């Protein structure tokens, strides 16, 4: 519901109509790229590959006799939850959910929103007006309420969480792609491409998309983190991944119930969630600086 800016202020699109690639102000040191990237690769590998090659206890169906073991118990490095499930195993399988949801939501937003935004920005006219209005309404709507309603309506499952969250990753990517396209549309090389007889589809694939990619990719890392946080929020509220399937969000919600007695039940998944999102954000920041994205 962004109220329009005063007439004398430049509209947001005009404000961002500077060349997308500006000269990088300071080169990010390689460490700022590789430390978070390395951590993320390690975390993803731990979540997806570790359970395959080094057997961990099942994340569900634990014995009530083993409930509430403290961390560093034999056989349960991070202890067990009040239902007797191994916490480490739930962290790893819950991490799979986080990565899968984050990746899918970002990918859907990047492809669908990106294409819509590029089409709107490149062809302008009626298509632009129609696409922009739809994106505006979706952005104006209180996103989490919409996601909650959709998740509630479709019922809790991983796929439904992805659909619910894609509803607002699409307009976000769409808007960025559109303003990026508008910004490079008037560049000389675009004119040259048009004059030399390139077709619209060719120009979009060869000139527009490669040029707005840095912007979209840095936003994708940010969006990945936001999607992970929101998946956790839905699961935290019981509308995301259905119990007893593990998810970091529902683990935090369960741990919160026993916070004073066994704080690690909530703090361990919290730490993993925070570490994953902070790595994504630091990586996005470093790449933004490196690629000179404003």
């Amino acid at each position, binding site marked *: 519901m962004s109220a329009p*800016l005063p007439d004398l202020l430049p509209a947001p699109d005009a404000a961002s109509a500077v060349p997308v690639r500006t000269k990088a102000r300071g080169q990010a040191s390689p460490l700022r790229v590789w430390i978070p990237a390395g951590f993320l690769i390690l975390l993803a590998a731990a979540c997806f590959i570790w359970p395959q090659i080094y057997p961990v206890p099942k994340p569900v169906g634990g014995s009530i006799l083993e409930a509430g073991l403290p961390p560093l118990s034999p056989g349960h490095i991070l202890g067990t939850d009040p239902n007797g499930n191994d916490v480490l195993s739930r962290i790893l399988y819950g991490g799979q959910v986080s990565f899968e949801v984050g990746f899918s939501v970002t990918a859907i937003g990047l492809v669908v929103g990106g294409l819509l935004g590029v089409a709107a920005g490149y062809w302008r006219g009626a298509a632009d007006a129609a696409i922009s209005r739809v994106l505006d309404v979706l952005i104006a709507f209180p996103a989490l*309420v919409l996601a909650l309603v959709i998740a509630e309506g479709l019922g809790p499952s991983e796929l439904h969480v992805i659909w619910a969250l894609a509803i607002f990753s699409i307009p976000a990517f769409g808007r960025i792609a559109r303003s990026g396209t508008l910004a490079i549309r008037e560049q000389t090389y675009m004119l040259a491409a048009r004059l030399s007889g390139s077709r619209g589809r060719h120009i979009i694939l060869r000139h527009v998309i490669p040029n707005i990619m840095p912007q979209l990719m840095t936003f994708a890392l940010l969006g990945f983190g936001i999607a992970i946080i929101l998946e956790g929020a839905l699961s*935290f509220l019981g509308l995301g991944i259905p119990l007893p399937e593990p998810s970091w969000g529902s683990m935090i919600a369960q741990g919160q119930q026993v916070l004073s007695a066994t704080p690690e039940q909530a703090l361990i998944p919290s730490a993993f969630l925070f570490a994953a999102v902070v790595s994504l954000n630091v990586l996005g920041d470093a790449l933004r600086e490196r690629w000179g994205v404003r």
Partner: protein
Amino acid sequence: MAVGAEPGAETGAGMTLAQRALRSPTLRLAGRRLLAVIPVLWGVTFLTYVVMNLLPGDTAQVLLGANATPAQVHQLEVRLHLNEPFWVRYGGWLGATIHGNLGTSLASGENVTTILGQRLPVTAELLIYAFVGSIVLAVLLAVLAARRPNGIADRFSVVISMTGLSVAPYVLAVVLVYVFAVKLQWFPAIGYTSLTADPLENIRSLTLPAIAIGFPLFAVYTRLLRADIVEQMQREDYIVTARAKGVPSWQILIRHALPNSMFGLITLVALNLGALVGAVAIIEPIFSLPGVGAILISSITNHDVPIVEGVVLVFAVVVVLAGLAADLLYAVLDPRIRYERSAS
């Protein structure tokens, strides 16, 4: 709702003032914006109604539970007008809402206006607390950081804002409760004391939820404002002029660069307000605060359309008014935005 009213018309203190108010460009701008608000509000409430009605499952069945007989379900449907077509129900709701009647809760039969009247003050207090705190602290830290880019304060601000950007509100809430309520016992973990009952206790009961909502905002604001101030300080001629005149550097920062850097922050604050309904919906139940966020979640699961509509409408109005306030603030901060020189 007197949404379309020209604000100047309400002054009513003599013809000259009223005439002047009507001609005032700022107020005319405000009036035009208020008129433009109506379709946005309609769109948001309509979309909410559609989405809520797309929910699978029978509302009456949800309300009565799985054991209800078909006859009972049918009886309740008739009583709540759920058996009527979508457009009839929506028309009825819209007509009543225009007259200021938000209907009654499907679950409890209570008046939605009454429910909102009881719960809104809690949420409003929480949000004001979170907002004022985050904006004041963000301005302080951003100015300190921008004073010396890459200095100690700047590095600190980068770490703090990265933390705030990355922490989920529910994670922050859990950590805050553990540290400050369970371990240190400085603040209560849950519960709400009203302002009139005990002002000090009221602030204590709202502090942790306000931090959980405000800290991520603080991080975003600090980051944005710091970048804007640094850019002003590096690029603008009036800064060079002020330096050449020998104005002390802190004065340049606060009197010249800061007001000119506030535009981005104001825009963002106005935009953020809408997204906050989500944060409120998550944080309020964690701290057992009796606000609108807590009832929003339960109303969505209950398919209680009138309450969801009421909450969404209130937040939409707030967002729209915030956008308007932002527009007017631009003019206050930058006199060039006014259409003509004001008399004062």
